[in-house]
């Protein structure tokens, strides 16, 4: 199956990101295809390079970055939601006159059209939220 994933909450505060990650991992191991993982609302915070969780706990951002690299996943952070919450790539930072960017490896920032496209192209869109 070709699956689309929507993650609506940030790491740690809600379990949504963990569950989505475990689901994606299991689906890939079973041979399914992940068309795209789209991060909306606070979900954009899964893409921050500046996370520094305690050493004895899972590093959610790194989990996603490494999974993306291993399986060539398309992790997309919604630009509008990201702007509100201060998640920027180099382009966005320049555009808004900020002195740094903070997006994590494996993530890219794009528009909501990418979410709609995911709904259209995937066999099923699975939503993880609160």
């Amino acid at each position: 199956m070709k699956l689309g994933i929507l993650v609506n909450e940030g790491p740690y505060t809600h379990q949504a990101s963990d569950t989505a990650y475990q689901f994606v991992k299991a689906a890939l191991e079973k041979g399914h295809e992940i068309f795209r993982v789209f991060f909306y609302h606070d979900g954009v915070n899964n893409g921050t390079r500046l996370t520094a969780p305690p050493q004895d706990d899972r590093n959610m951002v790194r989990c996603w970055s490494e999974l993306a690299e291993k399986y060539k996943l398309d992790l997309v952070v919604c630009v509008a939601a990201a702007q509100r919450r201060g998640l920027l790539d180099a382009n966005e930072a320049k555009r808004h006159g900020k002195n740094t960017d903070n997006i994590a490896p494996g993530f890219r920032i794009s528009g909501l059209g990418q979410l709609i496209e995911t709904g259209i192209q995937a066999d099923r869109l699975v939503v993880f939220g609160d």
Partner: protein
Amino acid sequence: MGEGASGVVKKFMYVNRKAPYGTIYALESLEVVLIGAAFEQDVSLAFIDDGVYQLAKGQDTKGLGVKNFSPTFRALEDYDVTKLYVARASLEDRGLTTEDLVVPVQVVDEQEMAEIMDGQDVILSF
């Protein structure tokens, strides 16, 4: 007919269960609907539980310092988004009737709502 990527038209439903203010889900959900309109899919919106308040007339948000975005629901018609389903029990539990809402809606009971949802291809819940 619609021009989704490669001409595919799917039934998209946006499920709204949260009040318009207090959290951002309602506003950001509506932003998806507006952007999504360009993809000319078959769109419906469902309003359940506190989600019904999103459509209430007379929202005065001055004290909150946030924009009252309920007028945007009236603009949905221009985007060809006209299927708005409201859960009967959710309306009644909150002492509301369709007279209290800013746009025309279809009030449905639980069974009907379940059937409508069952017929969707894509369900986005915020």
